[in-house]
């Protein structure tokens, strides 16, 4: 009886903040859903109920599907690359060596610079006519004429992925480093005494113990990279011929350049659903493998 009143009081006490967060999260979602189901003009004036016409428009748009496919490619390569590179970096930074503090700061530093600034610097460096990269390659005798790196998908997109990986490393390495430092040192000592090699220790101890941190790093990175706008926008604006557009850059064009807020709302709902499904599926998979392990 006492328990029940206590639960009730507790519920009553958190009710205001619960209502507030529901409002803050719920209202925008409601608004986007509402917009996506209506015909809405550039000025946000809602006209007729459109049913699923805005979604139909998207599904008839080849650029949407091409962007969707590229978003998958972009997310998988950037997150994959960032994780693969961050593991050795985190392991190294976890070792005790002279100047470790400085090394950690250097790895984290790029995090402090805004993505848009980083992208602008890269754009200058990659300029075919007066960029630093071409000038260097030219002086080394590797190039004999200007190469416009951002002029075609074949060079522009891999470069954008590489920059994406580079800027994701500080965050990923921090998460993994946090995980590594939570592993007690004595288990390693015990393993070493039992004759485990460095690789064996890494493969059979570090990696399994790191698993929850890897999972967090993957989920957060996927959400981040999937919605990442500045790198591609600053470098190529999705050009040439929409060949480097991902969903979020195309979404921006639809909403703010073409003034089609309704179709854009439908598209952001689809993006929201994709991320939701991914995150849910990932959590379920992670739980299952954990249960198996235990």
């Amino acid at each position: 009886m006492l328990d029940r009143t206590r639960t009730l009081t507790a519920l009553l006490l958190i009710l205001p903040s619960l209502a507030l967060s529901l409002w803050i999260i719920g209202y925008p979602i409601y608004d986007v859903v509402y917009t996506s189901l209506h015909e809405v003009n550039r000025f946000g004036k809602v006209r007729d109920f459109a049913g699923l016409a805005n979604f139909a428009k998207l599904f008839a748009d080849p650029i949407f599907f091409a962007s969707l496919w590229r978003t998958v490619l972009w997310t998988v390569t950037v997150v994959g690359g960032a994780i693969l590179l961050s593991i050795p970096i985190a392991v190294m930074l976890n070792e005790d060596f002279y100047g470790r503090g400085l090394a950690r700061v250097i790895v984290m530093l790029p995090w402090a610079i805004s993505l848009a600034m980083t992208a602008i610097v890269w754009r200058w460096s990659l300029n075919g006519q007066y960029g630093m990269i071409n000038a260097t390659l030219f002086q080394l005798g590797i190039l004999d004429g200007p190469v416009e790196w951002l002029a075609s998908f074949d060079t522009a997109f891999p470069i954008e992925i590489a920059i994406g990986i580079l800027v994701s490393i500080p965050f990923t390495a921090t998460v993994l480093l946090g995980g590594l430092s939570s592993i007690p040192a004595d288990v390693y000592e015990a393993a070493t005494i039992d004759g485990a090699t460095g690789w064996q220790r890494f493969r059979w101890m570090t990696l399994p113990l790191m698993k929850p941190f890897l999972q967090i790093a993957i989920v957060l990175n996927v959400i981040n990279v999937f919605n990442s706008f500045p790198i591609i926008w600053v470098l190529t604006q999705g050009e040439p011929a929409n060949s480097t557009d991902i969903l979020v850059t195309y979404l921006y064009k639809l909403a703010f350049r073409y003034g089609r807020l309704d179709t854009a709302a439908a598209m952001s709902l689809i993006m929201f659903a994709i991320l939701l499904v991914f995150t849910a599926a990932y959590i379920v998979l992670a739980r299952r493998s954990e249960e198996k392990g235990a």
Partner: protein
Amino acid sequence: MLNRRLAILTSGVALAALSALGPAQAQEKTEIRVIVAHYSDQTMGIFGGMEADFEAAHPDVDIKLEDVSWDNLQQRLTTDIAGGTVPDIAIIGTRWLLDYAANDIAEPIDDYMTPEFKAKFIEAFLEPSVIDGVTYGLPVAASARAMYYNKDLLEKAGISAPPATWDELVAAATAVKDKGEGAYGFGMQGKEIETDIYWYYALWAHGGELVQDGKSGIASEAGVKAATLYKSLIDQGLTQPSPTGSNRQDMESLFKQGRAAMILSGPWLRGQIKTEAPDLNYGLAPIPKGTVQATYGVTDTIMIFKDSEHKEEAWKFLEEAAFSDKNRIAFSEKEGFLPVMKAEAAAPVFADDPQLKAFTEMLPYAKFAPLIPNWEAASDTASAALQQIYQGQAEPEAALTDAAAKIDELIQQ
């Protein structure tokens, strides 16, 4: 700590004093809010002059100017309109006007305009702001495009006069490539905003139109000819390599550095060359002819909002201050735009400037962006098709036909 407290306290007192003073003064005055697009760092100064002129003549009106960058302007106004907090007057791109008129946002000004006032304008510049016979605004800035050529590079290549036709341009570019010591013959834009416009010059010169009978004209014979011409310029190495990597600024930089012999651009480039490359020996000529002479004309419109509560005063500000001879001449001269009023064109600064003549002489041939719905999307569609052609991913005719079909759908929406 004490200092900080003191600072907060004093600023609080100052704020209270300000807010006590503010409304008392403003109450008697009619406030007119004007959104000024940021053309250059001089824009606000020029509009400040207009404000001073008007407030001196009408002490009961308070003109409030607001500086907004072009990048933010469309979104800013869209937000204001959606939120019901529109200003009284704003500068907008003329191509946005169709949306503003269709949604009943812009006030028709035909009833305000006296015939004498109307007669002060150069007729061609008023027209872009007319939709279905109704005038929705006044031309505030106008520009046309011309060909910039590097005199030294052409001379080195043995060319004495700037090319007047596209055939001559190809010949001149070839000569520059052979003898120009690494300079490019013709600067080509293939990236970002206005990629399509850079090609419309050639489309128009070959007799094409952007919209014919309510349908896209980019896949016409003239369009295919223009695209084939540009592709062949790229393939022959007469332009900088991989133009899909060069936006307008990149291409203009090549010209400023003396590394491109000919490019097509607007009056703003003169000002940039004056400050960034004062030694560049260059000239201006009309855009080369194909079968006809043509250029791209752009106007910006200053308009009054229908929801403004002081439309009469707003109009008076435009008629008496913003479009007085003195202020117009100051604006066009300092910003490097073309005269839109007859009095400006007659002013010595414009009449005696030989370089400016290249632009003003092109005016009778100026084509304006058609007022069609979804212009921005149509423009991007055309640019994407061109980028495919320039990269060799598609044949001109196939790519343009495809794009034209998409644009037709956009126009009909």
